[in-house]
């Protein structure tokens, strides 16, 4: 373990220095840590505002509009309110676990941003295994959520936490396999190299991969329609039923920080990250994050929550085989050299492949419960 850790550290040091960025100094790490924390917190505020106002308008409401101009200060007001609330810990709770859970859930959401490039080479650590790091770190927050469910000693919390673990274990697989397609085309696991390789945004080369990753990503961070772990109508609030005050605020922050992180990863992998004309790269990146997040809000408003059996069936009987097929098709195309020579052919072929695969698979192969209804 120790040597592996050391290796990653060395690689990080080697890769962090990019041609036009003065990395490799101690202030590089300090600067980016501060930038990332500030970035995540401001993005979370903005994103909460977008979600509440956007969702309101989609549901023919106005959304919060009283605090500050256009209701822009609503997240601030919420934060102040939540911080002033009493901190209640259930008598039967496992105090230490209950206290640690929000911290453990929050750390990975921040750590994810360490490998996400804001500009060419402008990132905390340009790991050459960036994607692997993302996958590994993002599942750590499940531990925090499971601790929350366990520590609360409440059956609904535990049920929510168990559902979350089940969902993450299942959805991690199609998610990784969907990423493999991107990695094959880019030929690198480093997020910065993947962005550099995107002359055409990979959403065009990998339309199916994008859809799979989007669905799996939404399920991974438990956003509607996959929000079974906090299904308010069944489980009160799932794993954070017993949380209040500051700790609840932490979980609220985790939810949106993870949403921002997944949006950032999707923007980096499929939408060309910081690449774009005219505007400065970091602005392009923010715009793309917000676009992806808006798509999440859009699906959240539209789709009803799915059942737990549908959740599992969707992961194992639809996303998993589709991502395998996607991986094989992409591998064949890469072997034939399409991504470099026949880009436009590849785009058209892949969009057609996506349409045919989705139709055929859902028509002939996708069944809930093997076609039987069991009670």
């Amino acid at each position: 373990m120790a040597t592996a850790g050391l290796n990653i550290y060395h690689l990080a040091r080697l890769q962090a220095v990019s041609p036009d960025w003065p990395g490799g100094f101690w202030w590089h790490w300090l600067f980016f840590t501060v930038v990332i924390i500030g970035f995540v917190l401001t993005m979370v505020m903005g994103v909460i505002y977008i979600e509440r106002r956007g969702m309101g308008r989609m549901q023919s409401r106005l959304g919060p509009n009283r605090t500050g101009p256009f209701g822009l200060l609503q997240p601030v007001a919420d934060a102040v309110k939540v911080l002033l609330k009493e901190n209640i810990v259930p008598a039967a709770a496992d105090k230490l676990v209950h206290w640690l859970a929000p911290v453990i859930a929050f750390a990975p959401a921040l750590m994810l941003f360490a490998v996400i490039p804001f500009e060419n080479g402008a990132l905390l650590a340009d790991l050459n295994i960036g994607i692997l790091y993302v996958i590994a770190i993002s599942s750590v927050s499940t531990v925090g959520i499971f601790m929350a469910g366990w520590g609360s000693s409440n059956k609904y919390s535990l049920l929510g936490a168990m559902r979350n673990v089940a969902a993450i274990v299942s959805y991690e697989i199609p998610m990784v396999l969907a990423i493999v397609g991107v990695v094959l085309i880019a030929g690198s696991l480093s997020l910065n190299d993947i962005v550099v390789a995107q002359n055409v945004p990979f959403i065009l080369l990998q339309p199916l991969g994008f859809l799979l990753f989007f669905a799996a990503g939404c399920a991974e961070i438990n956003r509607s329609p996959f929000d079974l772990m906090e299904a308010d109508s069944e489980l009160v609030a799932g794993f954070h039923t017993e949380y209040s005050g500051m700790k609840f605020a932490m979980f609220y922050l985790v939810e949106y920080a993870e949403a921002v992180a997944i949006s950032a990863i999707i923007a980096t992998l499929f939408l060309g990250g910081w690449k774009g004309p005219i505007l400065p790269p970091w602005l392009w990146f923010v715009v793309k994050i917000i676009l992806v997040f808006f798509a999440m809000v859009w699906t959240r408003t539209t789709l009803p929550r799915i059942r737990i059996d549908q959740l599992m069936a969707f992961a194992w009987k639809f996303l998993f085989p589709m991502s395998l097929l996607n991986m094989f098709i992409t591998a064949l195309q890469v072997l034939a050299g399409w991504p470099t020579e026949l880009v436009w052919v590849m785009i058209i072929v892949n969009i057609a492949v996506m349409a045919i695969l989705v139709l055929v698979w859902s028509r002939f192969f996708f069944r809930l419960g093997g076609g039987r209804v069991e009670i």
Partner: protein
Amino acid sequence: MKFERYGIGIAKGLTVTIKHLFRHPTVSQYPEQRLNISRRFRGNELIWNQEKCTGCGTCAKTCPQGAIEIITSTDMAENKYVVEKYEADTGYCIQCGLCIESCPYEALYFSHNFECAKYRRGELVQGKEEMLETPERKVSGYFYPDKAEKLPKQTLLIEKVTEKR
């Protein structure tokens, strides 16, 4: 072969929500923007006309809730009843309208006012002075079509929502 199952249904749903994003919202921001309520609104208060009332007590008798209390004395010189106390307990009133319909002298009306929430039960009892018609306590058109005509037409939607903040 029906395509509804293969993602078309989801696409349809998505177009519905995106259309609503660009429509104007169907809400009113209550304290600043109000919809006009029905002209025949059975208000939460009663309005009583002191001049017309003869103190016959029909309203109190007909009330199924016993919400109206009326005490009269006789004025021998004028040869008529004097209403000493007239009280309606709006906490008991079920807004059935029987008292208004039964009043032979058209002295009792519903009010067109719906913001009658109070902090104490005792405040729900309307005394004589709180039953008179004032600019704030308008008479509703219930049972009196001629009065209904003078009230503004009911609105169901605010046509253009301008955000108040």
